[in-house]
């Protein structure tokens, strides 16, 4: 939230729409595919944003308004799929290693 805050105002108030300023841009690339091969929504614990925010026990309300997955489901989803349902630190570290590789 703090990381994205200034970009948020830049987009909403000043109309700056480069991908750096775009939450939609984040979502488009960081979409995580679920079992059905389609990007998961925020309802899933595998969602990119939730993996860290759940771990830190922080509830985010971004996706009460924002779409939590790319519009054409599947089209631009990242190929990374979250390894396990267990949300422990090790799994998260493994996931981060996998996407960083």
């Amino acid at each position, binding site marked *: 939230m703090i990381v994205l805050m200034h970009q*948020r105002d*830049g987009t*909403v*108030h*000043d*109309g*700056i*729409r*480069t*991908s*750096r*300023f775009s939450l*939609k*841009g984040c*979502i*488009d*690339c*960081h979409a995580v595919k679920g079992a059905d091969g389609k990007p998961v*929504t925020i309802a899933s614990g595998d969602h990119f944003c939730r993996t860290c925010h759940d771990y830190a026990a922080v509830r985010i309300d971004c996706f*009460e*308004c*924002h*779409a939590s997955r*790319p*519009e054409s489901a599947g089209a*631009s*989803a*990242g*190929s*990374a799929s979250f390894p396990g349902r267990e949300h422990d630190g090790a799994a998260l570290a493994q996931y981060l290693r*996998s*996407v*960083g*590789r």
Partner: protein
Amino acid sequence: MSCGSKCATGCAGGTGRGCAGAGRDRIDEERRSFMRGAAASVMSLGAGVTLYAFDADPAAAREPGEKVTAKNRWGLLIDVSKCADGCSKCVTACQDENGWRDTGHPETDAQWIRTLTVKNPNNGATFSLPMMCQHCANPPCVDVCPTGASFKRADGIVLVDKHTCIGCRYCMMACPYKARSFIHEPLQDQKPYAPRGKGTVESCTLCVHRVDSGRIPACVEACNDTAGGAMLFGDLNDPSSEIAKRVTALRTTRIRADLGTDPGVYYRNI
């Protein structure tokens, strides 16, 4: 695993960091070329069809990374005589674009744009027109908003910043055009470029996401493509723009102009 198919094609063999940077540049480039294309198509259509928006290439006017300025004032000119009875193409286009829809609760469902039928009670004469946020220069909704969530962008587009909207609905009390809706129910599957959520107020954004990428609002596009071509979008501040020329040359009406709101939406043949 790589960082995603899109990124991987853009910078095969790069490091994670480099990849992200390259991907960003690529997206920006993509966006720019897309906008050039969009502007070009608008221009080419504009030659034949009477009403099209951008006379000058808007992408050239502002880079995506630049702030909007008061140099522009976006507005609409709507020729009511071209609005066919019962036509609601602009309404459905807006619904499709922005994701609001009829959920069977007419009292509480949001309506960003609607068609009004106006009848003179003395002689029965009627006409129809689309009604939406009038993007006032002096918007009462902006004046009354306690947190400043209701705001006017430098280029005249009136928006709700849903990050700071507390859902008090005072703007709905203040708007003379009934342009705003309150979201009464939780929503899912919003459009990525049109965030909307329970407990906040919303209204026509003049398709700000489209305008920022050099496109015209969905309602205007739909009206031109599939209906009577009653709507013209453009920059009221640019004297060379089609809308500015017409607003100068033709007799136009603005709704409740007596309130001094200075709307950005002009009507013709009312």
